[in-house]
């Protein structure tokens, strides 16, 4: 029912621009939210959807452009100010306080209090119950939030936003933690809110949902607005074509000429974690994942963010072990229940969060590089400084780490150089299989190219490389083979040479063909 007669522009962002150190996240983007309408916001990872939303709800301030509320230029100071202006947001990461009750969370920050300063407890619970009644009446307002399931928390979060009776409701991937049934309830809720006049911005990677509930679709790519179209003028194929189509800007080393074969280095047979299926927290039924990596090849793991890639590679490294299925390394079934076991089996893992998981920031380059292979430099219980120094210097040169010496503290290096130190650290363990998660995120182009070249060299030496990345060009340019994940399972396997953005995007959004 697009284009209801009474719809008018409530919130407008005009020519919004936002730059973060080193990245232009948003360039000259204009968005219009109308009452009685659902505007879907779609685009690849890193297209700028979240940045745009964060500008509209006051988390960030724009560097350029302006925000108009009912036609009046308005500065949205912070998220709370946004809420008082009638703009409520449900972010991807939930922001409930687990040790308060549902009602206390819903009314937090706007508790009704009497003249004496005492809370009107019964009012709090009544108003919370009213807000919940519209969203999910089965949730108990007296329950502690830590007792709720992820889906219930999502509903409480929406009730919290809804309790303000906003004119604009922004939902950032609200269905990603929900099962199909729960998602369906949410969609009908959104439809109901729209009929009451609310303007909804709906971000989702599930294109089915986009077609089901939106009136207009705004497509974003690389921080730009590609187009805004009424849903009636779109079909799945056209939408995907609008979302993709970036230019290859980096040079990738040549792929291996022939497909790798022989005995797989890594083989996953139907692995899963029944307690919480890969990726999606609330999905009903767990589907196992099977994949192989042969020696000497680079295998890419693609898909939109949060489709289970993270759980999968963390499972391979034993950080959060699988509870089902088999892991075979060199044809032998192994039990990897801890990172130690993974290292012993010849697996090295480079996490996406460099600072938190990959490096000890106050230690030097040398100390960080040697950390995972201390056994090689210890004799009679003592570290051998000379040997340590030689090994570190060797890799400083091999990887072209830009620092005056190996004694430099890692915390002072650039992101690219830090990533090289992490690579060196794991290469020193002489792994058979190298697993990388977003290895080039936030890294300058030159270092990216160096890392690509290095990975290819390793593959040529017979190492198996598994790389999970949300950067589609990287995925296509680097990989010999590509697996695409969607909602916790692999939806397709594509040869790197045959991969196109359209094909991968179709697989990434749940469609088998495009």
């Amino acid at each position: 029912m697009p284009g209801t007669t009474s719809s008018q522009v409530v919130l407008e962002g005009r020519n919004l621009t936002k730059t973060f150190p080193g990245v232009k996240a948003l360039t000259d983007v204009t968005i219009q939210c109308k009452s009685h309408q659902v505007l879907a916001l779609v685009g690849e990872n890193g297209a700028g959807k979240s940045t745009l939303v964060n500008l509209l709800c006051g988390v960030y301030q724009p560097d350029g452009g302006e925000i108009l509320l009912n036609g009046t230029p308005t500065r949205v100071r912070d998220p709370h100010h946004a809420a008082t202006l009638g703009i409520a947001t449900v972010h991807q990461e939930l922001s409930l306080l687990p040790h308060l009750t549902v009602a206390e969370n819903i009314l937090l920050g706007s508790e009704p209090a009497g003249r004496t300063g005492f809370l009107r407890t019964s009012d709090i619970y009544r108003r919370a119950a009213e807000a919940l009644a519209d969203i999910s009446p089965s949730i108990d307002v007296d329950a502690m939030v830590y007792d709720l399931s992820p889906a219930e928390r999502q509903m409480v979060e929406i009730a919290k936003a809804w309790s303000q009776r906003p004119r604009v409701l922004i939902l950032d991937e609200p269905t990603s933690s929900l099962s199909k049934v729960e998602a369906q309830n949410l969609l009908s809720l959104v439809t109901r809110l729209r009929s009451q006049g609310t303007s909804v911005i709906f971000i989702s990677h599930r294109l089915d949902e986009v077609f089901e509930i939106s009136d207009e679709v705004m497509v974003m790519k690389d921080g730009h607005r590609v187009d805004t179209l009424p849903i009636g003028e779109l079909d799945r194929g056209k939408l995907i074509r609008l979302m993709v189509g970036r230019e290859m800007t980096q040079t990738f080393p040549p792929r291996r000429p022939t497909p790798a074969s022989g005995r797989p280095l890594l083989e996953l047979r139907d692995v899963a974690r029944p307690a919480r299926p890969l990726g999606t927290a609330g999905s009903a039924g767990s589907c196992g994942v099977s994949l192989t990596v042969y020696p000497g090849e680079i295998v890419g793991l693609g898909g939109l963010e949060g489709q289970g890639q993270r759980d999968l590679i963390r499972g391979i490294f034993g950080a959060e072990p699988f509870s089902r299925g088999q892991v075979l390394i060199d044809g032998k079934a192994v039990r990897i229940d801890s990172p130690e076991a993974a290292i012993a089996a010849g697996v090295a893992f480079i996490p996406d969060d460099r600072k938190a998981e990959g490096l000890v920031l106050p230690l030097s380059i040398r100390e960080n590089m040697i950390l995972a292979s201390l056994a090689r430099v210890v004799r009679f219980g003592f570290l051998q400084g000379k040997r340590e120094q030689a090994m570190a210097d060797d890799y400083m040169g091999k990887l072209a780490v830009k620092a005056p010496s190996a004694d430099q503290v890692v915390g002072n290096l650039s992101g690219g150089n830090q990533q090289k130190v992490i690579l060196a650290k794991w290469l020193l363990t002489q792994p058979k299989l190298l697993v990388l998660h977003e290895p080039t995120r936030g890294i300058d182009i030159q270092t990216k190219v160096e890392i690509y070249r290095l990975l290819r060299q390793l593959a040529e030496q017979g190492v198996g490389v598994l790389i999970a990345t949300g950067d589609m060009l990287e995925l296509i340019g680097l990989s010999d083979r590509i697996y695409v994940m969607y909602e916790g399972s692999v939806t397709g396997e594509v040869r790197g040479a045959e991969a196109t953005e359209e094909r991968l995007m179709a697989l990434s959004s749940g469609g088998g063909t495009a």
Partner: protein
Amino acid sequence: MRKGWRGSVVRQARRAIPIYLLVLGLVAMTLVVSPTFRTEQNFRNVVAQVTPLAAVAVGQTVVLLLGGIDLSIGSVVSLATVILSFSGRNGSLHIGPALLLALAAGALVGFLNGLGVVRLRIPPLLMTLASMAVVKGVALYLRDAPGGSVDRAFTRFLNWHAGPVTMFGLALLVLYLAAWAFLSFTRPGRHLYATGGDREHARRSGVNVDWTTILGYTLAGLVGAIGGILLAGRIYSGDPVIGDAYSLDSVAASVLGGTSLLGGIGGVVGTLAGAVLLAMTNNILNLLNVFSFYQYIVKGLILAGALVLYHVRGRGAHRAA
């Protein structure tokens, strides 16, 4: 669940159940073992012994709920006794101004602690460590050794009793009821829990986390001064170092009562039992003629035991969070 008794109220009460069972068990055991413990005199004694610590621990709990800590609270206790010790015979202050001055000094120290934590972003541990030293210096400047005397009428008032009912006990009751009502039934109280639970989430919900933090530290300083005043009523004089132990003992009492050092979890209901447990342990071991070094060891073991208990119990909830 009755209307009105919901959320944080129930939460506080539930968390405190084990510590109350422990205290009751200890009392029951001692009642059997020691005839002296059964006397009315000893009951009043226990109440008087527990009063300063229990009072101070209220302030500490408030700051711990914020996810902070107040190490200066012991120095504030000392300073309050020192200020009151100028109100006795030959003193330079009347009791009224002395009381006001002690309370104002405590609140000021707390306010400055809060300001340092919020505006200068000094970690609470360091901020209050610094103010602990400064306040102690001021107390020592005012009175370099224990001495002076507290207004007779005031001490007589504080030491009034009728049967087992004592003024110390009544004061403590009023303080705890006020703190409990504040934390459970007022906006700032709720915001304190939210700020300590997750500062950023609370801020995004429209809670003024900076103001809440400053308020929390100010209240802690104020309550610390109240603790000092009650203590002065017991020792009839001023002592510039008497409060030192209260800084950490009050943390121990709060934690024993189920308040988390990470903030956002706990409350004064448990703190009362925690303070009683600590004070009673001393009383009981004294009655049983146990050497004082054993008393320290026993206190330490109780604390460690309680922490293990809460850690094991709390793990599920934290996971889910």
